[in-house]
């Protein structure tokens, strides 16, 4: 005689879901399941809808108050000075002003490659699901340097670079 409890619904370790039990009742989860879940409708959908409305209203409000920039018609013979890339590339442009090849090609390629490879470079399985986990101080530190450097470069390129890309203090 076997002492093992007969498993009617064996769990497949490869799946994140499994059939736990069959109960009589009129809903999918008659009692609280083993996990803390809520029905997506209405709990998730209502929140999503509210967030959408918020985004819509804010964008509409901003659009009623501020007009998108529109300068003179393009003139290939008259370059603006300085000519600036869009703000999200202005940090790269700032790097280019130090070294065209290192700043304009090597740095962006390295950034993209390290972002793509990141999950395979950081093999530490700990610290998932919490902000700034104490288990991954180094990762947090390194990524923050990257973020702060990007922000500083963009701020410099956008606000303190004048004609001929020379330093220029906007309040002077």
């Amino acid at each position, binding site marked *: 005689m076997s002492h093992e409890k007969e498993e009617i619904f064996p769990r497949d370790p490869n799946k994140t879901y499994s059939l736990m039990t069959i109960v009589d009742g009129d809903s999918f989860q008659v009692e609280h399941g083993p996990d803390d879940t809520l029905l997506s409708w209405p709990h998730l959908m209502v929140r999503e809808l509210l967030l959408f409305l918020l985004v819509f209203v804010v964008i509409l409000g901003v659009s009623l108050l501020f007009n998108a920039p529109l300068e003179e018609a*393009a003139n290939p013979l008259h370059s603006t000075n300085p000519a600036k890339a869009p703000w999200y590339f202005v940090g790269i442009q700032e790097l280019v002003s130090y070294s065209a090849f290192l700043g304009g090609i090597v740095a962006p390629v390295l950034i993209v490659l390290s972002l793509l490879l*990141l999950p395979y470079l950081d093999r530490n399985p700990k610290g998932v699901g919490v902000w700034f986990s104490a288990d991954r101080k180094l990762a947090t530190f390194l990524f923050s340097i990257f973020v702060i450097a990007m922000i500083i470069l963009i701020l410099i390129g956008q606000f303190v670079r004048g004609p001929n890309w020379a330093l220029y203090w906007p309040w002077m």
Partner: protein
Amino acid sequence: MSESAYSLQESIKQLPGNIKESVFRREGGTPEQEQAAAIFGNVFLHLHPARVHINSLRLSYTYGLGLISFFLFLLLTASGVLLMFYYTPATQLAYRNMKDLEYVVSFGIVLRNVHRWSAHAMVAFVFLHMCRVFYTGSYKAPREFNWIIGVCLLLLTLFLSFTGYLLPWDQLAFWAITVGSNIAAYTPWIGDSVRFLMLGGNEVGQMALLRFYVLHVALLPLVAVVLLAVHFWRIRKDGGLSRPQNS
């Protein structure tokens, strides 16, 4: 309706119910069954699971940053399609179209503003979303590949924004794209060819405008939609949003 008991009167009585069933593909159930079916019986919502973990609903966990990015993408699609009715990708017309939007088309300026500000906001929010995913360690197994899809989405967002930047054909647009394409030309050996491929010439001109336009309104948005579908589908397949182990 059963065939044996066919009667005209009955069939008319059942018509409203039949129509409802044909649209929603289901007969009524208990309230909870109906609520679950509202998600998985709907092609637009079925990327959601019928139930979500409470951690996924905590605003202080995701700050809704991914969702905000997606909503901005929706706003951009809607306003972008409307802008297409008023825009011609020709160097002699593009700038005049912008002026017409400002002074002739009813609410044209608001339309253009919505598109422009949403585009800036989307770049920022996608970046913030990436930071959230990093700082919560959400790219770790089994979500590695979704992070990679995400990086592709970030690049797409940047390219979409960059290609759109040229379209107004004003000084800002022209010289920003000139600067941008010059950076690409620093690629060793093939730099000039890269720029030529980008601009359809050696300088920003009609060919560049057409190329950027086609990329901006057709190719890049299509790729983005496909990648977004994969991104959302993977969230589900990877077991919903990441959460602390003990919960």
